[in-house]
C-alpha cells in the first residue's frame, strides 16, 4: 500500500486558515499525493485559501450549532470513510479541536493515534513520525503498524508554512450524522479573553515570568518590560496554575509553542514542560536566582540574580533610551 491520499484537519481564525493549518498542508503537499482538508464548521469562506495551499477537496461540516468538536468531527469523518472516501494518512494539529477529534476517531476506526510529533517521513509503505521526549533531548521515531488510515498529531511550528502548488479547493459537504449520547453536550456561551499587543506565538520577542517573581503583583514587571520591547508577555505553567495570569499566557507543552527572535525567561527555572515550548527560540536570555536552574543550560545569556533587582534596573535603562 502506498500513501497517496493525505488529509489535513484544517482550522481558521479571522476568516483565514491558521498558520498551523498551512504548516500541515505544506508538509502534506511535499509527499506528492492528493491532499485534502477537513474543516469543522462552514468552510465556504476559507475553501479558496485552503485550495491555494494545496487542498484538492475541502470537506465542510457546516455550522456546528454549539456541538463540541470531538464527537461531531469524528462522526463526520467516520461517515466519509464509511462512504468510501478515505485518507491513507490524516494529519491533525496538537490542539484542543484536533486532539478531541482524533481521539474519538481512533476508537471508531480502531486505529492507534500517534501524538505530539514534530516530524513525519514516508518511505514506501513505511510511515514514521518523530516525537521529542524528556524536554526534547531525546527523539523517538515510531512507525505505524497495521493498516491505514494512519492518524497523527503534530505540535505547532513543526514545519514551515510555504506557498506551493495550488489545487482545486472543491467544497464538499461532510454531513455530521446523528451520534447519540456522545453528542449531547452543548456550548451555550463563548468568552474571549482580550489581550493587547502582539500574539504570543507570533511575537518577535517574548518576555515570560515564572514562580521566581514571588507573587502575582510582580507580574506587572513582565508586562512593562514586554511593552518596552514590543514583546508578548508569557508565563510558566506554575503561575498560570496559581491563577496569576490566564491560561492564554502559558508557554510550554500544554500551552503555546513559541519560536521568537529573543525569549526572555524571568524567574523561570526551566521545567521540562516549559522548555518544550520555548527551546526553539533563536536567542534565550534567562534571569534566575538559582545558578543550578536547568534554564541556564539552554540560555545564550544567563544572569544569576534576583528578578526583583535585575528587572527594575533593566526597565529603567530601557525607559531612559
Amino acid at each position, binding site marked *: 500500500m502506498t500513501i497517496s491520499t493525505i488529509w489535513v484537519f484544517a482550522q481558521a481564525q479571522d476568516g483565514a486558515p491558521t498558520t498551523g493549518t498551512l504548516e500541515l498542508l505544506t508538509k502534506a503537499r511535499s509527499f506528492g499525493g492528493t491532499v485534502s482538508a477537513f474543516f469543522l464548521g462552514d468552510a465556504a469562506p476559507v475553501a479558496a485559501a485552503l485550495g491555494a495551499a494545496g487542498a484538492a477537496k475541502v470537506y465542510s461540516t457546516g455550522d456546528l450549532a454549539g456541538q*463540541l468538536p*470531538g464527537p461531531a468531527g469524528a462522526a463526520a469523518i467516520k461517515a466519509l470513510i464509511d462512504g468510501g472516501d478515505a485518507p491513507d494518512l490524516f494529519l491533525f494539529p496538537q490542539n*484542543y479541536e484536533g*486532539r*478531541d477529534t482524533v*481521539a*474519538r476517531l*481512533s476508537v*471508531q476506526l*480502531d486505529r*492507534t*493515534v500517534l501524538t*505530539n510529533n514534530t516530524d513525519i517521513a514516508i518511505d514506501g509503505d513505511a510511515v*514514521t513520525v518523530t516525537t*521529542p521526549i524528556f524536554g*526534547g*533531548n*531525546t*527523539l*523517538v521515531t515510531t*512507525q*505505524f*503498524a*497495521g493498516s491505514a488510515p494512519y492518524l497523527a498529531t503534530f505540535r505547532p511550528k513543526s514545519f514551515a508554512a510555504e506557498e506551493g502548488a495550488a489545487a482545486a479547493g472543491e467544497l464538499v459537504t461532510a454531513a455530521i450524522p446523528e451520534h*447519540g*449520547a*456522545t453528542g*449531547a*453536550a452543548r*456550548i*451555550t*456561551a*463563548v*468568552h*474571549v*479573553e482580550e489581550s493587547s499587543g502582539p500574539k504570543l506565538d507570533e511575537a*518577535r520577542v517574548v518576555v515570560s515570568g515564572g514562580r521566581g517573581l514571588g507573587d502575582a503583583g510582580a507580574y506587572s514587571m513582565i508586562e512593562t518590560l514586554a511593552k518596552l520591547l514590543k514583546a508578548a508577555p508569557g508565563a510558566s505553567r506554575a503561575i498560570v*496554575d*496559581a*491563577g496569576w495570569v*490566564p*491560561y*492564554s499566557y502559558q508557554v510550554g*507543552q*500544554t500551552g503555546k509553542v513559541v519560536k521568537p527572535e529573543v525569549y526572555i525567561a524571568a524567574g523561570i527555572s526551566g521545567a*521540562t514542560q516549559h522548555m518544550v515550548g520555548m*527551546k526553539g527560540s533563536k*536567542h*534565550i*536570555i534567562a534571569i534566575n536566582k538559582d*545558578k543550578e536552574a536547568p534554564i*541556564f543550560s539552554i540560555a*545564550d*545569556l*544567563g*544572569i544569576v540574580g534576583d528578578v526583583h533587582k*535585575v528587572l527594575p*534596573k*533593566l526597565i529603567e535603562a*530601557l525607559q531612559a533610551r
Partner: protein
Amino acid sequence: MNVIVCVKQIPDPALPGALDSSSNTLKRDGKLILDESDSYGVEMALQLVTAAGGGEVSLVSMAPNGEVSGLRTALAMGAAKAVLVSDPALKGSDALTTAKVLAAAVQRLGGADLIIGATESSDGYTGTVPEQIAEILGLPSVTFAKKVTIDGSTMHIERQTEQGYDEVTSPLPALISVTAGVVEPRYPSFKGIMAAKSKPLETVTVADLGITPVGWDGAGQTIVNVSQAEARKAGEVIEDDGETFTKVVSYLETLKLI
C-alpha cells in the same frame, strides 16, 4: 452521585526520566507516585460528591506492575475504593489500548454518573485517553474543564479554549478531563492515610476484563529509532553584581531589537 476518577501512577517527575533500552518505552518499573495532574481530578470528584450530598469516589488505574502507592495516596485523600489493572502483558500499550482497559475497569465498577480524567499525564502526555474512554463507553465528554457544577442530572462546565473559555452544558452520565489548578488538592490527613490502608483495592488482570490483544501485540505502532536531539549549548552565565542589566541591554542592541 458516584464518580470514577482515572488516575495514573508515574515515576517521580523530579527524577530524570529514562527509557528501557530493550523496549524503548519509558521506564516505569521503579517506585511510582500519583501523577500530580490526577490529584486535581480526585479533589474535584470529592468536592462534587460532597456538594451532591452523597455517593462515593472510586479510582481506576492501569500499570504493568502491581504498584499501588499512588492509589493509596488518592484513597487517603478520600476516595472509597480502587481497581488496578495490573498485568505484565500491558507493557508497551498504546493510548487506545489504555483507554480500552480503563473503560473496561469503569464497567467492572458498574459505571458512574461522572468519570474524570486529567487533560494529559505528566510522563506520556498523549492527551487522548479520556476522550477515547468516553467514545468507548458512548458518553458525552467535555475536555479541559476548569469549573464544574452539577445541578441534578445536568452538568455545567467552563471549558478552557485557546482564546478564553466556553460555557458548556452536558447531561449525565458523562466524562470530563480537568486542567491542573482547577481546585486545590487536599493533603491526605494522618487519619486518611491510616484509613486508606484498609480500603478495598482490587487488582485484576487483562484476562479478568476480557480484553485482547494488549501491550505490544495490540499497539498499532513500532518504535524504530531513538536518538539524541542536537543539544542547545549554554552560553555566558554571569552572577548579578547590580550591573548585569547592562549586559542584557547590549545583547538586545546587538540583535537590533532596541
